[in-house]
């Protein structure tokens, strides 16, 4: 039985009011959705709020999902839109619970355990990632968004075009411009 078939069955049941099916559906994309929100909002509490709000929207509007696209792509689109709404409504940033911590002028990424590399390499890698992520915040929202979706979350061009509801050509040019801009920013910071 294919994953697509199982997903369709779950969607069908969820549309008919089956709560367990709905919870199974959102559980399958919850982790990625949370990390998208976390990169957008840079705050765990805000990210969880965005995630909850998104899932409630999905629950309410499940019957409008036409199954033209994949369910998780539809979910991520809603998460992205919810995050953008939250950013527009509220630009405040709670630094206390942030995955980033202000250390003077410098922002550092919260420690994430990683045992795959040697400690020195881990530190070096984390430092570099931290630097890139702090530079990412200096890009405009559209550029930051496309880097999150493509380079952090690893969505394909097609998936991004569905999530952002734009053409593949737009995605291609946006990705290239955003990366070049991020590189420029990194060089300026160095």
């Amino acid at each position, binding site marked *: 039985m294919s994953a697509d078939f199982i997903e369709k069955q779950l969607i069908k049941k969820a549309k008919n009011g089956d709560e367990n099916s709905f919870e199974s559906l959102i559980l399958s994309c919850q982790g990625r959705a949370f990390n998208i929100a976390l990169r957008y909002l840079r705050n*765990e509490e805000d990210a*969880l709020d965005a995630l*909850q709000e998104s*899932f409630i929207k999905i629950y309410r509007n499940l019957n409008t999902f036409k199954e033209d696209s994949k369910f998780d792509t539809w979910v991520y689109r809603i998460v992205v839109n919810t995050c953008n709404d939250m950013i527009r409504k509220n630009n405040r940033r709670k630094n206390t619970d942030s995955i980033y911590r202000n250390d003077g002028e410098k922002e550092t990424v919260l420690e*994430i355990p990683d045992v795959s590399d040697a400690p020195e390499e881990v530190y070096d890698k984390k430092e570099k990632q931290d630097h890139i992520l702090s530079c990412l915040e200096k890009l405009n929202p559209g550029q930051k968004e496309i880097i999150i979706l493509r*380079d952090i979350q690893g969505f394909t061009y097609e998936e991004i075009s569905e999530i952002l509801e734009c053409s593949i050509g737009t995605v291609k040019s946006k990705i290239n411009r955003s*990366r070049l801009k991020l*590189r420029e920013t990194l*060089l300026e910071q160095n």
Partner: protein
Amino acid sequence: MKCNKIRKMLSLYIDKMLDDNLQKEVEEHISACNLCKKRYDDIKDMTTLLNEAEMVPVPESFEFRMKKALQQERAKISGEKNIAVPAKKNNKLRMLTSIAAIFAVGVISFGLYQDIIGDLPDQLDGVTDQLSQDRALTDQPESDLYKSNKNEGDKEIENLENSAGVADDVPEQRMNIYGNTKSAEPEKPESGIAHIPEDDISDSGIDEGNDGYSEDYSIKMKMSTDEFSRALTTSGVERNVAAVQYYTGIIEERLGDFKYEILNADFIQAGECRFRIYIFSGKGYKFKEEILAVGKDGEIEFIYTNELMGL
């Protein structure tokens, strides 16, 4: 291929989104161009590092939080559904209540107005004082007189007539001024007043004169004070009630020596009020004469009157 063109295709090259030929062309350029090679390396490292950024796990507490939120949402949706049905009923109920309220206000207003109008002529014309006098002069119980004063229609007139009839020396002309034949002794027929048969009333010159009226608020004959005022009110001429009362007071003063009856009151235009009046004489209050009283600027002018009436 120029560096500028390669620059635009770098990301697509890194993501292997180019055609094989272009992919190969960019590869060759990068291997030959240090500037483009540096740019490519930077972007490649950058994207690799970002892609290797650790995924943050969703806090375990979120599962409970989400279940609770969904539970609340379900309750909210079912609540909305439950509310949605009676909401329509409420609208109907609200509409019915509104109609009932409007009706109740109308009835109460009419009742209050009726009470006010019922008392007004008495207050204006000093009948209250006379009734007090009547009460003192007659043996009738006070309650009867009081009742008669508040009763409507003929009952009121009868009581008033009775009280007036007993008290001979009380001026009776103020008792019933709106189209009610006085009960006192019939006035002596004035000599020279021509008798006009009742059949000829419709052909009188006064009727012809009424043809040009723009508004006709004709009031039926033999109305009580209340009925007269009410008729005007329900005809939408509340504003004219005060004028009618004022002018009928003057008519009463002028025709106090005659037995008369106001047939109707017509409003031609603002400020002008015409009264058709029958003058009676002889036993059985036989119709004698029809006159027209025109009230304007606070004055009453009688027309179509016999000169001998001295009006």
